[in-house]
């Protein structure tokens, strides 16, 4: 034990950690704690004055915030749910013996590589209710397409669908890795015992791909909670405030020059993400250990 420890220590004198600690401290720790303070002030670049919890009170009185909060949760749950289901199904398909498997895998992954803003702008054009390709195609088969991004009830879901289209490749990739790492012996044993495809999916793939599920859920939930770029590129939170999420509400406060208010918003976002992810992570990993 001691020799291992000693050897582990030797190549790194402790001052080696200093640069990293400095960078981490200056770029992450100091701003984080500074933001806690500035969320209690009304500030501009030049000065600030302390106003206590007024920013938080104001922020929670913001009607856009309440809808933004629910929208954020809807968006996170919808995108992460769809990514799990579709990602798993695609991964099962793409690990089976089908023609052009490598090609199909790269096709599924391709949207992940494209810039989010580019995807957003492209789909805004495609989803235009009068002149967009989607509704024109629907019209060709006699269906009157909805205003994907202009109908207040649909806008958020339309953006969520685009998010899924763009992000499902990554979920699929993680699932493929998870499924491929399941030893073939299990499937052979199941076949000998007379299990069909459905049974081996539910009894073998699903439980043994659990680590992959945990990763996909956590990643897509965090992604969904702090999603901003796609929503901003496609609807700017509109029509009105109907597709606003917390991040876009905060951004708009910054844009308007309400720096204190938006810092308070960021602190709230930080707390919300922590409050959602910590218990979820704990719950999911605990289950894994019990398994």
């Amino acid at each position, binding site marked *: 034990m001691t020799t291992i420890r000693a050897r582990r220590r030797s190549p790194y004198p402790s001052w080696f950690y200093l640069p990293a600690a400095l960078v981490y401290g200056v770029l992450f720790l100091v701003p984080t704690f500074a933001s806690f303070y500035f969320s209690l002030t009304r500030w501009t670049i030049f000065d600030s004055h302390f106003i206590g919890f007024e920013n938080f009170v104001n922020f929670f009185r913001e009607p856009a915030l309440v809808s933004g909060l629910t929208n954020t949760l809807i968006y996170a749950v919808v995108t992460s749910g769809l990514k799990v289901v579709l990602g798993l199904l695609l991964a099962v398909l793409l690990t089976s013996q089908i023609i052009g498997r490598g090609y199909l895998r790269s096709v599924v992954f391709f949207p992940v590589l494209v810039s989010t803003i580019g995807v957003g702008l492209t789909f805004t054009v495609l989803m235009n209710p009068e002149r967009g390709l989607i509704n024109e195609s629907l019209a060709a088969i006699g269906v009157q397409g909805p205003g994907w991004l*202009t109908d207040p009830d649909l806008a958020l879901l339309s953006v969520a669908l685009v998010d899924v289209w763009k992000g499902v490749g990554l979920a699929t990739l993680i699932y493929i890795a998870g499924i491929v790492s399941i030893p073939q012996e299990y499937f052979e044993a199941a076949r000998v015992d007379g299990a069909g495809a459905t049974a081996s999916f539910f009894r073998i793939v699903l439980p043994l791909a659990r680590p992959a599920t945990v990763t996909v859920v956590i990643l897509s939930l965090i992604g969904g909670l702090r999603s901003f770029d796609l929503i901003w590129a496609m609807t700017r939170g509109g*029509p009105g405030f109907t597709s606003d999420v917390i991040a876009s509400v905060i951004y708009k406060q910054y844009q308007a020059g309400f720096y204190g208010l938006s810092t308070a918003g960021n602190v709230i976002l930080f707390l919300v993400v922590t409050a959602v992810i910590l218990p979820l992570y704990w719950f999911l990993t605990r289950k894994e250990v019990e398994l």
Partner: protein
Amino acid sequence: MFDVPPRRLGAFAAAAVASALALTACSAGSLGSSDEGGKTAISLLVDNAEATVKTAEQVVGDFTAKNPDITVKVETRPQGTEGDNIVKTRLSTGDMSDVFIYNSGSLFQALKPEQNLVALDDQSYVGQLDANFKTTVTAGGKVYGAPFGTFMGGAVLYNRKVYERLGLQVPKTWSEFMANNAKIKADGKAAPVIQTYQETWTSQLFILGDFHNVSAADSAFAEKYTKNQAKYATTPAALEGFAHLQEVFDAGYLNKDFASAKYEDGQRMIALGEGAHYPMLTAAVANIAINNPDKVNDVGLFALPGTDAATNGLTVWAPGGAYIPASTSGAKLEAARKLLAFIASPDGCTSQAKASPPTGPFAVKGCELPADVPQSIKDMQPYIDREGGSSLALEFLSPVKGPSLEQICVEVGSGIRKAPDGAALYDRDVEKQAQQLGLPGW
């Protein structure tokens, strides 16, 4: 083995120093380029609207022809809140272009002119500026801007061909306006009212352009509003604007694609008669003149109608200003001052009028409008000539303008939110702005 041989460490250090030197050399070079060949190079930042860029290039061309020892590079920025953000950020980081064009009035006040801009009171042209304009670029008793562009009207642009065909009269009251809309809808060939909510800022005219009617009902509204004594939701005349926005939606008078149409679509529709009314700033006329030059005289203008025909009048926007940031200094400051003096001279007005048709009268004494201005700009003149026929928009009389008005208008104008609720929400939005500005009484 993490030991780096000393020799190589030295090489690393040398490389680091060399690259640092290269970097500084680079930036010093680009900063120092201002005096190359005895010429002073300055930059001019304008928004990227087609008409603005064209005007800026024309002005710069005429200016440099007169001042061959100065070169001016025109840079562009986005419009709307995104552009506001860029201007504010670049100003507060001391990284602004040598001259920039920006709104006057409340948006100008939000730039903290005393800290960030160079005052112009010692310049000879200040005495020649229109008094209304001068108040909109004054902070702490000092003038900071030269007028770029002309006064603008915020009014209803209407298609005269449609009016002719249906034998309609220009409405003076809201009920006459709605009666006209009913006839246009019954005719079925044109959308009665054009709205273009894809670009949210275009949604605000029913409220902002209605301000003359508000101040006609209560001349002290702007002052009380700034002091937190008058509210949109509780002042009947001010609430009207929101109600109008809701009425045209409820009556089904909007163009079918109102939610996805853009500013450009609106300009095309009003010029070609696909729509009959477009509540808009007369800045749109300059764009119509560029894109549909043969149709620009089919577009007429009337002030937003209110309840009382006798007091109906036009709400006008003061021109934007050309400003010099405090970060400009030395030879560049001299060159920038010359550019501003040119912009605020009759020659500068002629130059601007050459680039794109003026959207209203100039703010410099001695500048005349050319004879061939579009019809809708001519339609502004009677309002301006009549005593009490026009007033400055609220954003020039009060520093308080809520940033979310455009989204609120989109909500009210597409039936998501009711008018009184929208007005109340806007009042809360305004409150945040006033608090951020640190105004007394909030």
